[in-house]
């Protein structure tokens, strides 16, 4: 469980870094770093690119085929797209559900 969380966290940070580079924005990334909104430099188009990259990583690296534009993602009070931690937690929940199917 810890291992998979670390893997997912690394993938989220990697995808985030790639998009930040495209925006010429170099900044330290922590669990609390905002992905969208607040002081994040990403606009909605950049978030789309990040999500696409992340979905591909999840499929390639842990064989998890998922669309992160899940209904729940769009309706949660605390958006998974808010910061790194919320994104990791959200993916982890989906991954556990997938494993239990």
């Amino acid at each position: 469980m810890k291992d998979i969380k670390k893997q997912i966290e690394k993938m989220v940070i990697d995808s985030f870094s790639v998009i930040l580079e495209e925006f010429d924005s170099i900044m330290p990334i922590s669990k609390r770093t905002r992905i969208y909104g607040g002081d994040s430099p990403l606009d909605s188009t950049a978030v789309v690119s990040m999500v696409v990259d992340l979905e591909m990583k999840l499929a390639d690296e842990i064989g998890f085929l998922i669309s992160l534009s899940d209904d729940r993602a769009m309706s949660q009070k605390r958006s998974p797209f808010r910061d790194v931690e919320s994104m990791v937690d959200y993916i982890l929940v989906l991954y556990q559900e997938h494993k239990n199917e």
Partner: protein
Amino acid sequence: MSEKPVMGITGTSRGIGRFLAEYYTQRDWIVMGCSRSDNDFVHESYHHENINITQEDEVIRWIRNGYKKFGRIDTMINNAGTARMNHSLLTPCKTIDLVMDLNVKGTMLVCREVGKIMIRQHFGRIINFSSIAVTLALEGESVYVASKAAIENYSRVLARELAQWNITVNVIAPLPIKTDLIKEVPEEKLQGLLERMVIKRYGTFEDISNVLNFFLSPNSSAITGQIITLGGW
């Protein structure tokens, strides 16, 4: 990565989709086809999967597996669709669900997933199917017409959203072609339909491939959000 360009086509088990699978494999494309039922078309460049495009997980699997296998998806032709004839006031709820699910939701799911691949590639061509029935506001096909009108406007929005990644999204609206789609339509009704068209004849598969080749041409990179209606306005 495949050296040949890769095209996805939905609904390849028969009719226009089957024709297009044969047509483009003969023209050096790799074709990823899909349909709910089996397909007996065999060609070294044709790769078939039985999926239901109204099921999100099946669409995701089909598109991602195709991308993994070939390393690229240059084009997606959203041909799969269904039609039902009913007066608006006599349309069963199940018919509304069936037509909207396949024609609208299915097309949107495929566009969404292949759009993600095309964003990564910074290239793509998406072609969706409407119908001349939209232009004619055809009586007796209200749900079908509504579903195809939805696709026309959806495609215009998608064209705007994806343009920055060099992805074009266009629509072909065929005239009636003698396929399973219209086999239940009475001949007199079809004749009445032909009379209302500018070009008063049935369509051919070649009418379709001609328009698709225009959309797919490297010279058509500035053509997006367009609807070409066969049979005339």
